[in-house]
């Protein structure tokens, strides 16, 4: 059957074609204006699935980076404190060596050494109570005001550790257990210095205590090494997370964002097509036989 063309079929198809053209134009317009290729799931279900996954990974990544930053600050605080402790302990050792040389000591010089030792012990105690954001970095998960009480007893929770998560399966320990480095109570380094100071005041020989001081110094250096390697781990993790974030972001942009140049070009083309359709329609629906009958 040949297709019979009448005014109303012409009008209907012109209307339909113009409508389709306008719809395509509107779609492109929306894409260009929002900059989004996927603004709803049905635009591209597979792409949207990837997008949701990427968004989740990015949120996690951002959080892990925050965790790593916080961990680095903890470790930095602990590391600085440990290195100062090391210096202080060296001074204690020097004074002890000086005092052990009993032949050159006078009662007044012994009293002076004892006073210095007491003051160095205070410094060490203050360093042991170092805090980051209100938390003692040597007291584990304890929320007590200080790691050590004035009577040298340790406030930390035994066996606990403070960890920061930098990956789904990776955590890094960011605190140092004060009691395992400095001891606690009567066996602590503070009690040791007290006993050296009193021995020095009373004129006794403190040469035998040097081993005990060296043992603590080695503990501190060990803890410094642990802190350093943890810091390295965090630096490495942060670098990896930053790279991953950049990759994720790029992939996400690739899926979600519209290729502006392409979309604008397509929109221009569509605009020309639409205007052509309008012009042609205006011409083709005008003439009827009546224009030519007299």
């Amino acid at each position, binding site marked *: 059957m040949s*297709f*019979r*063309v*009448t*005014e*109303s*079929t012409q009008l*209907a*198809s012109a209307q*339909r074609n113009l409508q389709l053209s306008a719809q395509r134009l509107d779609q492109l317009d929306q894409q260009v204006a929002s900059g989004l290729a*996927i*603004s*709803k*799931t*049905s*635009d591209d*279900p597979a792409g*949207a*699935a990837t*997008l*949701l*996954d990427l*968004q*989740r990974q990015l*949120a*996690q990544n*951002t*959080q892990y980076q*925050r*965790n790593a930053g*916080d961990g680095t600050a903890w470790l930095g605080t602990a590391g600085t404190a440990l290195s100062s402790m090391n210096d202080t302990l060296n001074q204690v050792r020097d004074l002890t060596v000086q005092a052990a040389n009993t032949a050159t000591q006078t009662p007044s010089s012994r009293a002076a050494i004892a006073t210095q030792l007491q003051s160095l012990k205070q410094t060490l105690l203050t360093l042991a109570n170092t805090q980051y*954001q*209100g*938390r003692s970095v040597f007291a*584990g*998960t*304890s*929320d007590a005001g200080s790691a050590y009480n004035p009577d040298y007893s340790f406030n*930390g*929770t035994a066996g*606990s550790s*403070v*960890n*920061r*998560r930098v990956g*789904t399966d990776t*955590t890094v320990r960011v605190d140092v257990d004060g009691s395992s480095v400095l001891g606690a109570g009567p066996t602590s380094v503070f009690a040791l210095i007290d006993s050296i100071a009193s021995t020095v005041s009373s004129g006794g020989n403190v040469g035998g205590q040097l081993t005990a001081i060296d043992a603590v110094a080695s503990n501190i250096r060990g803890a410094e090494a642990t802190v350093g390697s943890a810091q390295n781990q965090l630096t490495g993790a942060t670098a990896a997370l930053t790279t991953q974030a950049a990759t994720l972001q790029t992939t996400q942009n690739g899926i979600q964002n519209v290729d502006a140049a392409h979309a604008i070009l397509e929109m221009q083309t569509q605009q020309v097509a639409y205007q052509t359709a309008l012009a042609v329609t205006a011409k083709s629906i005008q003439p*009827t*036989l*009546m224009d030519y*009958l007299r």
Partner: protein
Amino acid sequence: MSGNLLGSLNTAFSGLAAAQAGIEVTGDNIANATTPGYVRQQVDLEAVGGPAQVGPFAQSAAAGQGVRVAGIVQLGSSLLDAQARSAGAAAGYSSVTASGLSALESTLGEPSGDAISGSLSKFWSAWQDVSNQPGAPAPVAALLGKAGSLVGQIATAYRSVQSQWSQTQQDLATTAAQVNSDASKVAELNGQIRSVAASGGDVNALITQRSTLLTELASLSGASVVNNADQTVTVSIGGANLVQGTVARSLSVTGSTTLEGAAGSPAGVQWSDGVGPVSLSSGKLAGDLALLAPATASGNGGAIAETAAKLNTLATSLAQQVNAVSVTGTTSTGATNVAFFGMSASGPAALGLSVLPTDPSGVAVAAAGAGAADGSIADAIGQLGTGAGSPDVAWSTGVIALGTATSNATQQSTLDQSAQAAATGAQSSQESVSLDEENMNLIAYQHAYQGSARVMTALDSILDQLINHTGLVGLG
């Protein structure tokens, strides 16, 4: 008897009458050129043969006795009408499902990052922040804020889904009422057409009215039409008659009017005379019913109820998974066995979900016996979003399934609409009025009229010659 001059005058007059009838029909066509559903008409002309020549006085062959208007016919095609109606029924179904699914999709607002899946990510991150600073009030306050907005989003989405269900249910009822009113009008027109046709009147205008109603009925209910010998039509849905002769049956909507009630009493359409459910396979009614169907265990129920079920599952699994970890921890005040999310015993889970702690001291952050500033429970909860069985994964799977269904439905709707456009195009190509054609017909009938008038003039002059001038030769 041929050769009768007065008879020839009569022949010329029949030509005048036929041309006049042609002009009248052409005028009617032109007047209705833009009337929706109008089918162009044509005068059906028949030549009237000459009388048979018998007997001894038979002369040479005789001319015919003019023209006769046999009727005015509509140039419609019942095949094209049926095709247009069935394409309309398919388009009616798919456009309802496509727009329903699109509305659901935009309710959820994924994947914008501000929608539920984005809020879930923010919620898990907030737990990590709490774990970094156990005991500090600010991160916990931020966590409670994030949890509150997540719970609010789930409830809001559920309410939107609920209201979409009610709107669709109302639409179903309105559509059924419209089908009933159309059916009774068709039955009434059937009666009028039958009686007018029996008395030999012109039924074309009535048939045009009825055909518009039939097209609407098809797109609403997928009804099919059978033309009967007495010019009436029989309309049936799913094999059962809706209209037969002058009798119309009616449909009624059954089932619960709320989303929750529909699980036990699904929405349906029944024959009002109690013969059971109407078997609907296409048209708007079937589309509404498909959207309103209750959720099933396999997840292939009605889209609205399935989305509501997904929101409920999300709320339930969120509460269960977070609480399972939370009850093993200790709060800053030392309280143990503390749940984070509350769930009301009755009603939908998506609306019953609530955040229990009202201040930072009510949140279990530390593992039991691990020190007051421990954050391992908060860390463990923060990790719940990463596993394969996490609420996030289940939710985004659901969102993608809905997106895929929407995309398919939209494509199907576009296809069905172009099929409908093609079918109505073919129908209107056959039935619509072409002004060019009508103008040509007008000229043809005008000329025919002039021709017949000219024949009359000629006969008149011959008769004048015969009557007034015969036998007067030489009398002058």
